[in-house]
């Protein structure tokens, strides 16, 4: 008994020792910044001088800041477009691949490859693809007499550029869905067929419920990712041109922190967004209780 107690307590501190890198990392790079960021949001802070307390001034300013509202609106609209469409595409492709037709590995690679492309290269590539004069899209359709919108220059269409790019990169999510689909017991489909279910009914009543935890995971991750969208719009639409239609939240935060030297204000923005994400995540989880179906294993 005593030897086991000794072992248990020795295990205890060795366990902590092994985990030490992360404990330090967590404190330094997550806890400290989170708390510090909250503190900074109550100050005026340009990195050159120490922060000075200003109370709620930053938040008051945010409330009236039109650019902030615009960037939030843009980000939310983008997320509303990109997250569901990517999910539909990813699930659809996964279902197609799950049919186990010949050459599945080849098709899987084709769909997955785009998601490996570095953000910057994607931005550059699609600046070229969406170019309204010589770009792949407009050029191809011009040849058959269809005139496509000015993707890069028209404020009404610029967000669609970003959304389409997001859908193009759904390969990673597709792989996750594919794995989820392969976990669905065939017996469920057989039972459904016995009841006379056709494709759409099978999808709605067997497939989707069975992969609903995966859908939830991807949607939550998608929302978090959408909020942090920075590299592609920064490259393709500097300053959020045209007419600030693609000015995303992360871009405005970056500009405030590093171009305008207003770190306090940027921190306030960051926390507002964080609270919004937490709220969205909690809402998703709440909604999921009704719709998400967890199997035992």
């Amino acid at each position: 008994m005593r030897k086991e107690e000794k072992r248990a307590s020795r295990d205890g501190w060795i366990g902590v020792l092994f985990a030490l890198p992360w404990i330090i990392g967590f404190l330094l790079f997550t806890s400290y910044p989170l708390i510090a960021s909250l503190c900074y949001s109550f100050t005026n802070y340009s990195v050159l001088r120490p922060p000075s307390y200003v109370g709620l001034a930053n938040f008051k300013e945010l409330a009236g800041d039109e650019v902030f509202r615009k960037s939030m609106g843009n980000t939310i609209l983008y997320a509303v477009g990109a997250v569901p469409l990517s999910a539909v595409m990813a699930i659809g492709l996964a279902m197609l691949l799950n049919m186990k037709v010949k050459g599945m590995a080849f098709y899987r690679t084709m769909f997955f490859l785009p998601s490996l492309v570095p953000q910057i290269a994607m931005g550059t590539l699609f600046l070229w693809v969406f170019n309204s004069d010589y770009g792949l899209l407009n050029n191809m359709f011009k040849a058959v007499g269809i005139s496509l919108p000015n993707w890069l220059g028209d404020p009404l269409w610029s967000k669609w550029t970003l959304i389409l790019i997001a859908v193009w990169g759904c390969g990673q999510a597709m792989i996750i869905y594919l794995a989820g689909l392969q976990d669905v017991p065939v017996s469920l489909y057989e039972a459904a067929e016995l009841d006379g279910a056709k494709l759409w009914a099978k999808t709605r009543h067997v497939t989707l419920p069975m992969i609903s935890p995966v859908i939830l995971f991807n949607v939550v991750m998608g929302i978090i990712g959408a909020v942090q969208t920075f590299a592609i719009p920064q490259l393709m639409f500097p300053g959020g041109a045209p007419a600030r239609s693609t000015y995303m939240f992360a871009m405005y935060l970056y500009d405030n922190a590093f171009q305008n030297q207003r770190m306090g204000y940027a921190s306030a923005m960051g926390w507002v967004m964080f609270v919004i994400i937490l709220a969205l995540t909690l809402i998703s989880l709440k909604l999921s209780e009704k719709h998400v179906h967890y199997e035992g294993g």
Partner: protein
Amino acid sequence: MSLNRKAAAHIALVVLSLIFFMPLLWMLSTSVKPIEETMKTPPQWIPSQFLWGNYPKAIEYRKEELGYIPFLVYARNTLLVTVLTVMGAVISNTLVAYSFARMKWKGRDLFFGVTLATMMVPFPVTMVPTFSLFKWLGWVGTYRPLWVPAFFGGAFSIFLLRQFFRTIPMELSEAAKIDGASEVQTFFDVILPLARPAVAVVALFTFMGTWNDFLGPLIYLVDQNTFTLSQGLQAYQTQHGGTPWNLLMAASCLVILPVMVVFFLAQKVFIQGIATSGLK
């Protein structure tokens, strides 16, 4: 499955994969064209001549024409940061995940839950104070803010590895302990060799994340000589009056190439890794 259903699936797959692959194909095609052919309507897929010379042209460091964009230097910088980061990630995350998975200590599971929660904190929120921290340390302008944090672990990799470690039967650890092995020895000699696939996944994901990183280098790197490929590509694109799209596409291809090569060499590991990450 009915023949009709299969045929329809085939057609859909072919059409869709073409659509997905087209931008990449277009990029390749443009990269070897002479500049006039890039502007043709309707778009010309196969160039009249294959100007492979566009590639060396794209990476050449030519003072007057291209401005100061030494691609090879950027590639070396990116490689340096990437290698250091991957090393740090593999070392720290395996240790930490092992602790979460196979060692007992007070508060372990609670802390693991907190670890998962940190994945929900968007980077913009912590960006400013982290930058301040590094500025206070005097590390801004160096590569350290980019790779040092990797030596302290990351939530996603910890999660992945911990799930994997838990699938290894406890009997193996117990057998080792009966043979007199210490915890450290058990870790290195028994568990780690078994964890090769999972560690490979962590290494792969870290490699990709670092190679593609744009915001990190943007914030912390000051001297143009130290920039990474992401910044190089961006500078390339903004530096020109009339953008030479063929050279730009060639440069993009070069930036994408290493990731593609790594992917093809490690396909199975990749796919499996992503699949397990989403499911557990």
